[in-house]
């Protein structure tokens, strides 16, 4: 069975600014990976490369054994840190749009979550609050039975109650044997759901460990984060 994520010697620069300096990663299916690191450490760049948004990188990237392309996009569900749905659409249009393009999209599940989130299917996205737009995006992404979910800061800018609700949606809806990669700063809130933790800093892997290994050390993920990135504190 091929690895869901396999990255070798990944490098990425923006002009003279090198954000990734030779990352090596390998993950099997069926994990929830916490992608942690300080601002500007390359988390979003890594996710953009995995989702096929950035092409001008060096090194090898394979998703389910394939280079980023049409196949990998069809098996990867991506939640960016910004609103990417067209404003003219209504909630139900956005759901239909995803059903058009993704064979693994479950419309009934999306409509059900829409009701549970108390979102009006006929409300236009441009009239929704930011929180409502984020909920809509999340429920659409989690209505896919993808092999890999890449969630970039899904908890950013929301209150603790909503954070908890978002985590519940993620935990209750990701497909069996799927891998979920969650980038976040809010370690405390998400620590409980991780199987693995990947910390990157200065463009390199600082820590790549299973949650069991971390627990065996007797410390929390947050303690280790503070230790690894002490230069930034």
């Amino acid at each position: 069975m091929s690895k869901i994520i396999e990255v070798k010697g990944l490098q990425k620069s923006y002009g003279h600014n090198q954000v990734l300096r030779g990352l090596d990663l390998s993950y099997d299916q069926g994990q929830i990976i916490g992608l942690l690191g300080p601002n500007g450490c390359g988390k979003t760049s890594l996710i953009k490369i995995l989702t096929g948004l950035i092409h001008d990188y060096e090194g090898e990237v394979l998703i389910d054994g394939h280079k980023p392309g049409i196949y990998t996009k069809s098996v990867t569900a991506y939640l960016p840190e910004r609103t990417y749905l067209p404003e003219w659409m209504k909630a139900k249009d956005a759901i239909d749009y995803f059903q058009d393009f993704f064979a693994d999209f479950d419309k009934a599940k999306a409509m059900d979550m829409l009701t549970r989130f108390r979102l009006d299917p006929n409300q236009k996205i441009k009239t929704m609050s930011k929180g409502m737009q984020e909920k809509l995006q999340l429920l659409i992404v989690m209505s896919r039975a993808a092999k890999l979910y890449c969630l970039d800061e899904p908890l950013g800018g929301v209150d603790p109650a909503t954070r908890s609700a978002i985590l519940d949606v993620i935990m209750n809806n990701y497909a069996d044997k799927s891998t979920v990669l969650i980038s976040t700063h809010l370690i405390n809130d998400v620590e409980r759901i991780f199987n693995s933790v990947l910390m990157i800093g200065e463009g390199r892997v600082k820590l790549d460990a299973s949650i069991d290994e971390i627990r065996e050390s007797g410390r929390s993920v947050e303690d280790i984060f503070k230790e690894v990135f002490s230069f930034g504190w």
Partner: protein
Amino acid sequence: MVGKLIKNEFKAGLHSIAPIYVAAVAAVGFMALALAFEIAWLTAISLVAVIVIALGILIVTLISVVSNFNKTLFRDQGYLSFTLPVTSGQLLFAKALSSFVWILLSYIAVIGIFTGIFLYSSDMVGEENIAMIKILISTVAEIPDTGAVIRVVSFICIRIFLKIVCLIAQIYFAISLSNVRPFQRQSFLPAILIFVVIYGVMNTVSTLLTAYVPLSIVISVQGIELSNRAMSAGGMVYGVADIIFEFVMTTLFFYLSTWFMNHKINLK
């Protein structure tokens, strides 16, 4: 997947372009009512409104084509467009096709509106109008070589289609290039400058090719013919080298736009 992309492109275009067509229909309706009830002041106001809206159709369509391409590929919506399981070429094709249809429709609407205004201002309304159409039909029917008429009309249509596609290719290329890293930070100005430069260069080269390359297509009262002269005394002249140049450049602009998307553009 291309079919689904095209369907969604038309839906998106409809939302930005449809209101101006609704306004045009309303203005024409008011004008027809004003004429029917002979209300002079309403006729004058609705006539001005129709002219303004007709020009508005062209402007709104072009703005929509530019804004749709830029917003859906290189702004936040690009995060959705480029994570769909389709190629950049398929995205570009769907956008170009819908842009082509909207621009063509805007030309047809504007020509229709101004023809209507011309007929009205020439007092050729009602019976006179119908009489003129009958004369036009009988004139065409009397032409001995109807094949020549079909060839002329077909050639002119293809020429207009190519011009529209070339314009779309130039717009797409300018926007794509302006989203490559050195220009990316400067908002919309680089795209406008790049478009102005390539539009100017294209027109200059086209004019020179038509003037100096001794091979042209001439449309005259005799029909359409190939001529081994660059210029001709009578009829409309289309340089063959110019047409080939336009076709090659259009293909190149689309190719380069796709190449930039695949290799050089990182979404902000």
